[in-house]
């Protein structure tokens, strides 16, 4: 049964995508199928989390072939947690896009959105559960290729240009990933992660370090860590709000997840600390300063996204239980919050007809409910207590507080970033929610219940993360523990003789 729970998050969306593609004639059927399947996957992910929480890392090999012969899927606390939050967000975004009518409006190809979206979700799920480096690559490709399609769907000129930037950079990263897999295989003769983590111990140290760093670069591109981030602010903002939301919330996080997974499992003795710390500081500061410099609401949020990847690198750089706990929590929180903000930004842009802060400042403010929906994730992003952002950030800072050396610099960068994020959010608030000279207030909200409901759902997810910080904190801490104690993972995959 474990195997079924593990494989369903990928198989169901893939099956549904196939069916959805053939169903292209019927929009309603596609919509229903999408929502039903993602709901099922959400339920599945909850079950996985409960299982992982109870039993620790749980693996299944497919087709009845033992690892490393067959492909291993594995859920531990980290992957199940991220899976659950990601699927929840994906579901909410799907509802949002159905409400917004985006899913229907690709004029040339109304059939394209749903299958692509389902495959995107399937790829994301698979990436979290993959216990095999090459399978992870395939999952990435599913996810990324779907994203190439989604970002260029219904495309005008600007989006094509942005799509080029996004696609080409991602492709470069994918090709590097494939190359790295080849190198890992060359050195070890396996691509199974658990097997790799054992065989990597026999590989000469210099090569291991280099492979570790190479993987960092590969996933750093996907995660948009500085200086590999440039593509993100140039591409995400042009996509429609739900697409941007799901990209921002999920794709970069999968990169972070892969980084955490591989670094902890394969290269535990590597001294990547300095590199990661430097990358974290640069990411935090360059990202947030970029946000401060923007005049476009979506670009601003994209830069904030880049910046906050730095927080996740922060915890990974510490490479201890408190630090990784922080990374886990921050990732979980950021998924919900960033998605929520992009969705609300989408509503704002839709209402005002512009994304420029300058022009938004002149426009009439959106209704208070939108302000409320904006405020909570915005404060969360800035790490203002008692939001989820604060919880996650606090855990990271606290983890950093235990270290000496150069860590205070990291903490200082994180604090400056928090402050500048707040500044950026305040600028947004000022532009969007102040009454400009164009006075006429919107008499009636032109959206519908689905849009607001979906946005509210995501925002409430963020609130839930803050409220449930106790339980989440416990899970995250154990997840971090599992990450550093690799024996659990190896035993789950390779059986008792591993270790």
């Amino acid at each position, binding site marked *: 049964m474990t195997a079924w729970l593990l494989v369903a998050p990928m198989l169901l969306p893939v099956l549904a995508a196939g069916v959805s593609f053939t169903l292209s004639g019927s929009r309603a059927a596609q919509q229903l199928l999408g929502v039903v399947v993602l709901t099922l996957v959400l339920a599945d992910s909850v079950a996985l989390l409960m299982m992982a929480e109870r039993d620790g890392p749980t693996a299944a090999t497919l087709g009845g072939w033992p690892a490393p012969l067959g492909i291993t899927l594995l859920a531990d606390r980290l992957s199940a947690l991220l899976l659950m939050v990601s699927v929840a967000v994906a579901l909410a975004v799907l509802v949002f896009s159905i409400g917004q009518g985006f899913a229907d409006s690709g004029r040339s190809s109304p059939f394209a959105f749903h299958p692509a979206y389902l495959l995107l979700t399937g790829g994301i799920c698979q990436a979290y559960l993959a216990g095999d480096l090459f399978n992870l690559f395939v999952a990435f490709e599913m996810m990324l*290729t779907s994203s190439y399609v989604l970002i260029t769907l219904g495309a005008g000129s600007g989006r094509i240009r*942005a799509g080029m930037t996004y696609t080409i950079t991602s492709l470069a990263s994918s090709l590097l990933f494939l190359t790295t897999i080849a190198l890992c295989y060359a050195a070890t003769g396996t691509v199974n992660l658990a097997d790799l983590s054992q065989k990597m111990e026999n590989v000469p140290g210099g090569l291991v370090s280099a492979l570790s760093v190479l993987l960092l670069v590969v996933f750093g591109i996907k995660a948009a860590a500085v200086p590999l981030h440039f593509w993100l602010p140039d591409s995400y903002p042009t996509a429609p709000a739900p697409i941007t939301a799901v990209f921002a919330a999920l794709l970069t996080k999968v990169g972070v997840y892969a980084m955490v997974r591989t670094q902890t499992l394969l290269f535990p003795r590597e001294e990547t600390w300095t590199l990661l710390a430097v990358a974290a500081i640069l990411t935090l500061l360059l990202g947030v300063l970029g946000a401060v410099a923007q005049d476009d609401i979506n670009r601003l949020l994209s830069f904030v996204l880049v910046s906050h990847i730095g927080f996740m690198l922060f915890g990974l750089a510490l490479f201890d239980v408190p630090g990784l706990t922080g990374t886990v929590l921050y990732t979980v929180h950021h998924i919900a919050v960033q998605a929520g903000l992009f969705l609300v930004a989408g509503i704002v842009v839709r209402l005002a007809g512009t994304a420029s*802060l300058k022009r938004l400042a002149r426009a009439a403010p959106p209704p208070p409910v939108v302000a409320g929906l904006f405020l909570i994730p915005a404060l969360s992003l800035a790490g203002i207590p008692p939001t989820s952002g604060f919880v996650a950030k606090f855990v990271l800072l606290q983890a950093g507080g235990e270290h000496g050396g150069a860590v205070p610099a990291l903490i200082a960068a994180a604090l400056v970033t928090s402050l500048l994020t707040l500044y950026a959010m305040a600028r947004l608030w000022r532009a969007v929610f102040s009454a400009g000279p164009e006075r006429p207030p919107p008499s009636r909200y032109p959206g519908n219940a689905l849009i607001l409901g979906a946005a509210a759902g995501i925002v409430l997810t963020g609130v839930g993360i803050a409220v449930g910080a106790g339980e989440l904190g416990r899970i995250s801490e154990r997840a971090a523990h599992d990450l550093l104690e690799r024996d659990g993972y190896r035993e789950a995959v390779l059986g008792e003789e591993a270790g």
Partner: protein
Amino acid sequence: MTTLDLVMALVVGGLFAAGFYLLLDRSLMRVLLGVIVLGHAANLLLLLTGGPPGMPPVVSDGDEAERYADPLPQAMALTAIVITFGITTLLLALVHRAWQLDGHDEVRDDVEDRRIGTVEDREESGPPLPTDRDHEPGGGSGR
């Protein structure tokens, strides 16, 4: 275990170098060619990691397993080839669409990045800039 031979190292390096060179171009078509070449490079490398040339891994009775070429990199490379093919067609469609819309398939610089001027033209002051972006989903083309 033998190392990669010099000739193959040269080919792999050459494929990567040429691929990267093309990837750095502004012409989307050249970039696409670069992606294809890099795909070849990665696949070849993957295959070469399986060791020196061997018999095709089609099992027949009485053969020793060592005689065969390593099948795993082959399977992985095959998967990667198909993926690269898919992406190639997608990019080609993108080239086509770019040309359809703009009359060129050049990867132009992002205009929004140019728009970051100075602090003085922040939202507090200065005349509003006209926006050329369409935020309506699906809109923008062909109208």
